[in-house]
């Protein structure tokens, strides 16, 4: 489908990104440069990077597929599923993480609770990111296969080589600053298809009229709030309790890939501002990823696989040979690469700081840890490529990612919240809360057919596992010895300030 100018656009994009990575290599002299960009990043770059890392090529496919099946209620994930959580992060959690000089979230958990909690959280995230890499690779390969007819492995290898190169060379600086460019390309490319699609279906009014005219089952397609007995995976109770109160917070505050950028901010103010600026940009994402699914309902009704809606639209709407398909293709690659580079860098950081430096080699030189981080990046990339075929066994790509997340997110957020707001939370409370919460998550998921009335209850699972983690951690904390107050300064919300005020 690519032709003429399209090839030039795509090649220029790939070459530009790799050159940028090579350029930033000169600024990487220490492990802090590699993992935290030397704590030099401005808020606007971090905010843009957070948004583009959270959204990828798989969202163009997966979210538009969900919108095709269920309507705009999937937009909840980028609206209420992001904004309140990012504000909570900006004003409460991020300033404390930044001031503590952390590299990773498990590092906070280790300082606040103990090394068991730190290790369990680190291993959990490493496993999640490693397998998520495979899911993203496969989703994108599916997209490129449908669009261009490229063999799956060809797409995966090309992406892996480009991302691996610039992430290996430039570390977090290269990741964040290439993300800025990738976000602009993604927004422009995404907007082109939405504008052309809306023009084809008669604008917004035409879109609404034509979808709602398709029958009774389409009447709720333009409602964000769905009833509790909805057939979609997004009942309002799940959106409120599971998404807003748990998963959104866990994702924006407890996710290493997101928080690591804020830890690299050049000031505390930049760290806070990056989240609020990111929240603003995030609100435009549903327009880019959700509208194509709605437009496809009008242009291609009755598709068996909703995930094929977006690729079909690209083939139908964009003229080949003029560079526009190339731009869209670059936008999809940008989305893919921005997600992968974030996971690679974050996982390398988790491995190096929380596992290698802690358990394998404690007192090595900083140069040594820099090398370990770079090697980890490459090893993870290879692992992601090799495990990518596993994801094809899941029905919806987006739901697959959320299912993975719902296992761990609730319990991790429960102990993060208790840790920062309740100084009485003890090390054993944190450990039992985390383990107990994950166990409850697992059991709920295994017996979901008996326990839940909706098809995919990942939102409910995350809420109940969060609650279980919270209750277990609280009860165990009340029966165990807390840390001395001095150890908790800078780790518990306004603890030191409260002490000063009393004195």
């Amino acid at each position, binding site marked *: 489908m690519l032709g003429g100018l399209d090839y030039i656009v795509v090649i220029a994009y790939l070459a530009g990104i790799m050159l940028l990575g090579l350029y930033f290599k000169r600024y990487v002299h220490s492990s802090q440069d590699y993992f935290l960009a030397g704590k030099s990043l401005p808020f606007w770059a971090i905010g843009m990077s957070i948004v583009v890392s959270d959204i990828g090529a798989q969202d163009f496919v997966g979210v538009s597929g969900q919108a095709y099946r269920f309507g*705009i209620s999937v937009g909840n994930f980028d609206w209420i599923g992001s*904004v*309140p959580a990012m504000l909570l992060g900006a004003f409460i959690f991020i*300033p404390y993480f930044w001031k503590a000089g952390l590299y990773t979230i498990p590092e906070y958990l280790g300082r606040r609770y103990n090394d068991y909690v730190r290790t369990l959280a680190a291993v959990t995230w490493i496993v999640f990111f490693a397998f998520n890499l495979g899911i993203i690779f496969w989703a994108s390969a599916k997209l490129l296969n449908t669009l261009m007819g490229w063999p799956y492995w060809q797409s995966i290898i090309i992406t892996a080589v480009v991302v691996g190169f610039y992430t290996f060379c430039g570390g977090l600086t290269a990741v964040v600053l290439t993300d800025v460019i990738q976000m602009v390309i993604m927004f422009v490319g995404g907007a082109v298809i939405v504008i052309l699609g809306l023009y084809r279906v008669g604008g917004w009014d035409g879109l609404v009229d034509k979808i709602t005219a398709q029958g009774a089952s389409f009447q709720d397609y333009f409602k964000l709030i769905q009833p509790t007995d909805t057939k979609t995976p997004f009942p309002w109770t799940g959106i*409120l309790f599971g998404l807003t109160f748990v998963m959104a917070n866990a994702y924006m505050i407890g996710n290493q890939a997101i928080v690591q950028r804020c830890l690299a901010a050049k000031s505390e103010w930049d760290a806070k501002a990056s989240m*609020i600026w990111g*929240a603003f940009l995030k609100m435009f994402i549903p327009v880019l990823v959700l509208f194509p699914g709605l437009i496809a309902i009008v242009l291609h009704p009755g598709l068996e696989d909703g995930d094929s809606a977006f690729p079909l639209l690209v083939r139908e709407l964009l003229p080949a040979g003029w560079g526009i398909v190339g731009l869209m293709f670059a936008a999809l690659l940008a989305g893919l690469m921005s997600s992968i580079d974030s996971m690679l860098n974050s996982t390398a950081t988790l491995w190096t700081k929380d596992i290698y430096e802690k358990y394998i080699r404690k007192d090595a030189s900083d140069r040594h840890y820099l090398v370990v981080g770079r090697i980890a990046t490459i090893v993870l990339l290879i692992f992601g490529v090799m495990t990518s075929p596993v994801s094809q066994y899941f029905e919806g790509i987006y739901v697959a990612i959320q299912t993975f997340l719902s296992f761990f997110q609730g319990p991790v957020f429960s102990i993060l919240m208790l840790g920062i707001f309740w100084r009485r939370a003890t090390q054993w409370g944190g450990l039992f809360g985390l383990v107990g919460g994950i166990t409850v998550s697992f059991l709920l998921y295994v017996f979901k057919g008996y*326990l*839940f009335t909706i098809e995919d209850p990942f939102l409910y699972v995350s809420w*109940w596992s969060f609650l279980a983690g919270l209750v277990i951690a609280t009860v165990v904390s009340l029966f165990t010895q807390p840390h001395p107050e001095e150890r908790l300064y800078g780790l518990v919300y306004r603890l030191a300030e409260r002490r000063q005020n009393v004195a």
Partner: protein
Amino acid sequence: MLKAIRYVLNFEWLAGLSIGAAKNVFLILFVLIGILVLLVPNDYIYQGAKKRKWWFNLKLWALGDLAFIFITYYIF
């Protein structure tokens, strides 16, 4: 027993709430968050800022975000 567990886990105890009322719950949540944002001390907001100018006041940024999302949920 299983029926009672399902009743709780699936939030069937909230099934009686109309969609309109549920929508109001979301809108009230945004207003509450806005109030909490306004209560954050200014000194804390400006920590690390280059200058103490009004455009560095992150409360205003946050309220802008909340206004945007409030309107979205009000319409849809």
